[in-house]
């Protein structure tokens, strides 16, 4: 805002905003920082995979077959002689993409729905949240399985289906945020100043509701990735020729007795990512002082 004007008039002390405070707390949390670092690294690798992967995705060598890790193939090769590192990198691209995109779908639907319900209140709120309650009570995992069975295994559907499950909690959190913020006296003060509803939402509600949303988003990504992996493991998610960590784990499980590295490396990649996201989410929750988000 127009703070620079002030600087000319007085020697003002710098304040510490809540965001700065939160960052300070987060930066003291080693696990969360580790999570953040791993995550950034994995996202970077996933983005650059087509250029930095050691082998091409389609390159195989049936004569070579499955070999343990070696200098040429750091993570070994699978039964078709494909480089495991390349497979894990390409699988990560899909797994991370599903995690982030489906979460984004959930985020958009959930926040809009929850914010409208919470802000409108009264009967609109009652009807909207009743719908959420009913959908919430549906056995979703089974529905997604059904959906994938009936409509074939297509990626777009996968995003939509997973997003459709996860938006419910997001909507509930957003609504309770908006509702409790609405009753805060600083919002009443803003109303009595004569601010328009749009300004109140932009300047007073959103900045204060952001914390729980950030935390919950961070914790939703891993559960979405798990869901994708679960479906892929059953053969109902990502389909060849594309691959994902869930699919690689499923192949690895079939031949784990002879070639344990085929199970191990995609497993490590996925577990490490989930760890990182959960540590980061827990760290953010503590740093932003969000209570009751997802446990």
């Amino acid at each position, binding site marked *: 805002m127009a703070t620079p004007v002030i600087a000319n008039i007085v020697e003002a002390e710098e*304040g510490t905003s*809540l965001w700065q405070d939160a960052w300070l707390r987060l930066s003291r949390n080693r696990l969360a920082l580790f999570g953040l670092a791993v995550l950034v690294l994995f996202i970077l690798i996933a983005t650059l995979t087509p250029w930095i992967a050691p082998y091409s995705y389609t390159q195989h060598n049936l004569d070579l077959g499955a070999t343990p890790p070696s200098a040429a193939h750091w993570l070994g090769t699978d039964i078709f002689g494909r480089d495991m590192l390349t497979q894990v990198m390409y699988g990560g691209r899909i797994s991370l993409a599903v995690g982030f995109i489906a979460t984004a779908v959930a985020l958009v639907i959930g926040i809009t729905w929850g914010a409208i319900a919470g802000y409108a209140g009264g009967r609109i709120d009652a009807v909207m949240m009743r719908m959420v309650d009913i959908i919430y009570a549906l056995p979703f995992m089974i529905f997604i399985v059904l959906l994938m069975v009936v409509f074939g295994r297509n990626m777009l559907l996968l995003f939509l289906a997973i997003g459709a499950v996860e938006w419910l909690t997001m909507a509930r959190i957003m609504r309770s945020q908006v509702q409790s913020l609405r009753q805060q006296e600083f919002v009443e*003060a803003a109303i009595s100043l004569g601010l328009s509803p749009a300004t109140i939402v932009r300047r007073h509600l959103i900045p204060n509701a952001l914390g729980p949303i950030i935390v919950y988003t961070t914790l939703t990504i891993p559960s979405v990735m798990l869901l994708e992996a679960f479906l892929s493991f059953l053969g109902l998610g990502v389909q060849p020729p594309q691959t994902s960590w869930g699919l690689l784990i499923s192949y690895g499980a079939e031949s784990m007795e002879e070639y344990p590295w085929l199970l191990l490396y995609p497993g490590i990649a996925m577990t490490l990512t989930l760890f990182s996201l959960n540590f980061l989410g827990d760290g953010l929750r503590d740093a932003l002082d969000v209570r009751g988000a997802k446990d």
Partner: protein
Amino acid sequence: MLTAENLGISFVTRMGTNKAVDGISFTVEAGKITAIIGESGSGKSVACYSLLGLIPQPPGRIDSGRALFQGQDLLQLTEAQLRETRGRDIAMVFQDPMTCLNPYMTVGNQLMEPLRYHKKVSKAQARERALELLEEVGIRDPASTIDNYPHQFSGGMRQRVMIAMALINEPKLLIADEPTTALDVTIQAQILELLAALQKKRNIGILFISHDLAVVADIADTIVVMQEGKIIETGNRDDIFRHAQQPYTQKLLQAIPTGGKSEVLQKSEPLLSIRNLSTWFRQGKTHVKAVDDVSFEIRRGEVLGLVGESGSGKSTIGRSILRLVPITSGEVIFDGTDITALAARELKNMRSRLQIIFQDPFASLNPRMTVFDTLAEPLLLHGLDNRSNVGASVLKLMDDVGLARSFVRKYPHEFSGGQRQRIAIGRALATRPEFVVADEPVSALDVTIQAQILDLMRELGKEYSLTTLFISHDLAVVRKLADRIVVLQKGKIVEQAGTSELFEHPRQPYTRQLLQSIPGRVLRANAT
């Protein structure tokens, strides 16, 4: 009976060591009440909790001292020995009866627990004793309520249950930590009376912790004044009130609102008329009539005190005037315009003329906005300033409310409660309103800060030619500021009169009861 000597307690955290209690000594005699007085953070509660080993260690740490009780040093007892003492020889009553009873357990079971654990009596015997005691502390029909859960009791009744629970093993010492602070003023008076009566009858010692000198004045024999972990002054009650030696004690005494407003207001025309105002809230299928057909006027330049206990609808009236809650029926006429009938655009312009100051300065400021942003927002919104000259106005406001200019870029969480309330007052006055609703503006503050904020409001009222609706549960505070007073009970007006008229000749029984419940009777008797 209890002698604490040179008690020192610290809290050790990552940020460093904080000395909460710094070498204090005091005694409690059998059959006497010793009160420890101090503002929040003075260490009074920590000191008392440490006697029973109830502060978590770490981060708490007892540095020094002895606490002799019946020949034993409490601080040297093992945890098992301490447990034998707790609830048997020394019992406690806490501040908030709403949270201090276990919501998952019937009152009877909680009540019998100390008896069953310490004295190993049978369940039937314990129940009988519990019923007797409930009767004694004034619970009506204990036989049918003993198996109820805490949420089925009112705040005052729960505090009676807490007292019964503390007394069930006939302890020799009772530690009462702000036992009436969370209660309405009439309930407070009843609970204090009950405590005093039970204490006399059983001849036990009480260590009474409070922030409120007026409350203590009515019951304590000895008063210990604490500030920042140290004892400032100790003496018997009359000495403290008549000849306090220490400046801090004198400041506390002065902070107790006594007497009325000195200058008398000239009669003027009404600025705000409230006619047949009703505000109901839906609750399931029925309505709660928070405000029920209320009419009164506020004259230009006057301070009107709106007084009532919790649930009287006093805050709802303030919010109804500003259209912060939808009203059910009635008119609010401000300077000739019915506010309830205004369209959105007209309302926005009107809003710069009416403002509100809230009770809780922690909740009334947006935690993500600096002082500058908070104060500049109304100025820019109503076009009183543009971006290039808003800075000067903000600084002027900060001067007016007594905030250092260098704080302009700080955030609310970096301020104390009193400073935050100054920011909130600055925000309310930014648009130079004619009328302000002050909704319990000092109830959340320590007494000395309370006095400062009240002084500030009085000054600013004159400087800004304000008309004020001053809402409070605290008659003594209202008396100091208000020209006239409206007394509310359960959404209806009980009585309205000029301030001195109301205090000297209350006409309604409820008003009389309220006036009699104001703590500090002894103090007022001394003053005259």
